[in-house]
């Protein structure tokens, strides 16, 4: 830890790369980041954000099936290509890829480090986010916000609170080379390393806001460097197949520069950074995190070099009194069935298929609410009641009809899938390519949890440490 250094201006710039912005992100994105970080000096970190809202519940289901699993299924693919270089080069890794089982993920990484010739790598595990045993269904229901899903006391699959940056900083202070977490605030993955590096006070709201802003810009990986951005001929992105994932340079006063590794595709400019700055933001004056309330209304961006954007103006106000938890419950089953029509009059045949199935389902399963999309005519911008599709005069030479319905029991859903398959023979001419499936659904509720009910812990893999 570098907290003993006296003058703030003497402190080096921290470099934080982000190699994943979601569970199924590109698994080789860390390689160019680590190559760049190894050429640089000072405190350097590589973070992975792989935990969407539902991902944790799916991991919890996986853990129940096999107690040795429940971490991100791509964990080894993400870390193996860069672990040796990180350990040799002093680059610390922080990831929420522990999902529902951070300890098992830590043990996997310890084994991997040993195989790569680093048997004494220090691997920290942050726990305490899993509240499923800490609160009763009644207690969760009493704390639900913005809905009433828990009112009927459904069985809880997963209940995890968003921890903040403090336990990550503690793990790094205690010498961790790798910090594995479950649910933490996404920007906390970056703020933790900054607290460790610069020793910012827990109520230094402005600097905490700067670190949180850096984390927010990093947390979706390539979404700040040209991913989720390209619109050919309108806003082009070079090298989509080799997108460089972001690196943030953060100084002790909270100054931020966003950039990316040399020799990679993508772009970092005002436009890519602005899109990510506002991504999933509601009130720009008050972005709530476990660590601080971030305000971005005064943020300014400056292009200070090729693929380099300086970010200034983050505002910070005291952190929320409560922590947010996501509670996932079983929500029955989803049926989806599809069939295609192509060539002349395809749109009319697709519409006839929809009408046919709707009429039959209205008789055979009258309470089942069925959605129909005509992919190629109206689907993504459509609505479940079908008003947008009915109003559309679009035509096309290749249309895929898709039906969807949900229910707690299988029977009406299997009936829908069979009715769609029956279109092979009994439907309009030339229908082909039926695919049908039934998958489990999850629903999630948000709860606000008092901080005194949450007890984050930091421990190290291997008893001797």
């Amino acid at each position, binding site marked *: 830890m570098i907290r003993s250094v006296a003058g703030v201006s003497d402190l080096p710039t921290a470099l934080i790369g982000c190699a994943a912005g979601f569970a199924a992100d590109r698994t080789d994105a860390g390689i160019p980041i680590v190559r760049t970080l190894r050429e640089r000096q000072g405190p350097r970190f590589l973070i992975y954000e792989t935990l969407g809202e539902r991902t944790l519940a799916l991991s919890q289901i996986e853990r129940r099936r096999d107690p040795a699993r429940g971490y991100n299924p791509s964990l080894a693919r993400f870390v193996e290509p860069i672990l040796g270089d990180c350990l040799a080069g002093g680059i610390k890794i922080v990831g929420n890829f522990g999902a529902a089982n951070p300890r098992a993920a830590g043990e996997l990484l310890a084994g991997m480090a040993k195989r790569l010739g680093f048997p004494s790598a220090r691997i920290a595990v942050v726990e305490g986010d899993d509240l499923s045993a800490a609160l009763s269904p009644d207690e969760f229901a009493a704390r639900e916000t913005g809905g009433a899903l828990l009112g009927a006391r459904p069985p809880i699959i997963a209940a995890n609170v968003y921890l903040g940056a403090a336990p990550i900083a503690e793990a790094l202070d205690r010498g961790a080379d790798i910090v594995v977490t479950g649910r933490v605030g996404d920007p906390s993955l970056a703020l933790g390393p900054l607290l460790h590096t610069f020793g910012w006070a827990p109520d230094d709201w402005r600097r905490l806001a700067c670190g949180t802003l850096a984390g927010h810009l990093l947390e979706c990986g390539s979404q700040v460097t040209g991913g989720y951005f390209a619109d050919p001929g309108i806003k082009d992105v070079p090298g989509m197949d080799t997108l460089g994932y972001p690196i943030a340079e953060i100084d002790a006063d909270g100054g931020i520069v966003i950039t990316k590794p040399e020799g990679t595709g993508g772009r970092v400019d005002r*436009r890519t950074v602005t899109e990510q700055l506002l991504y999933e933001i509601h009130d720009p004056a008050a972005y709530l995190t476990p660590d601080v309330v971030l305000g971005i209304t005064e943020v300014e961006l400056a292009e200070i070099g090729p693929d380099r954007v300086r970010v200034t103006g983050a505002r910070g106000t005291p952190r929320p009194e409560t922590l947010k938890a996501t509670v996932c419950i079983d929500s029955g089953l*989803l049926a989806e069935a599809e069939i295609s029509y192509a060539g002349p009059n395809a749109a009319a045949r697709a519409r006839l298929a929809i009408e046919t199935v709707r009429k039959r389902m209205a008789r055979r399963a009258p309470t089942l609410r069925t959605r129909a999309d005509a*992919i190629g005519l109206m689907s993504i911008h459509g609505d479940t009641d079908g008003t947008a599709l009915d109003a559309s005069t679009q035509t096309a030479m290749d249309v895929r009809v898709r039906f969807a319905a949900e229910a707690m029991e299988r029977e009406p859903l299997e009936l829908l899938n069979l009715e769609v398959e029956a279109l092979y023979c009994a439907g309009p001419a030339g229908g082909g390519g039926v695919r049908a499936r039934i998958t489990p659904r999850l*629903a999630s509720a948000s709860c606000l949890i008092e901080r005194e009910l949450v007890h984050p812990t930091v421990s190290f893999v291997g008893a001797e440490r």
Partner: protein
Amino acid sequence: MNDTVEVPLYRLVHARAGDKGNRLNLAVICYDPACYPALAAQLTAERVAAIFASRRPTKVVRYDLPKLHAFNFVLDDVLEGGVNASLGLDGHGKGLSFLLLGSTVRLDKALASRKLADVVEIAADSRSDAQA
């Protein structure tokens, strides 16, 4: 209205959609800062609610970010329950930014004559300024 022309929004702004539960946010960013006042006048919360009428928003709020030449629209209850509950293909509503971009506004002829390519050039100029 004689001195104005109808311009598709995708020529004037870029946009990104984000979701939280059943709530959608749309970041809308001007290519050319000169268009910001005209868009502020026309792309009201009411107008965006009308564009998304088939998704039945219960509330639309516009937050202005003049330093970024951007707006943030927050639309409540337009994701048909959100990614966990929607029967649609895109429960996140990721593609809904393009529902907005397919809409149009009326612009002053002079302003509208700054074609997209010109605006991109202007942006490139300001970028070299920033580097100097």
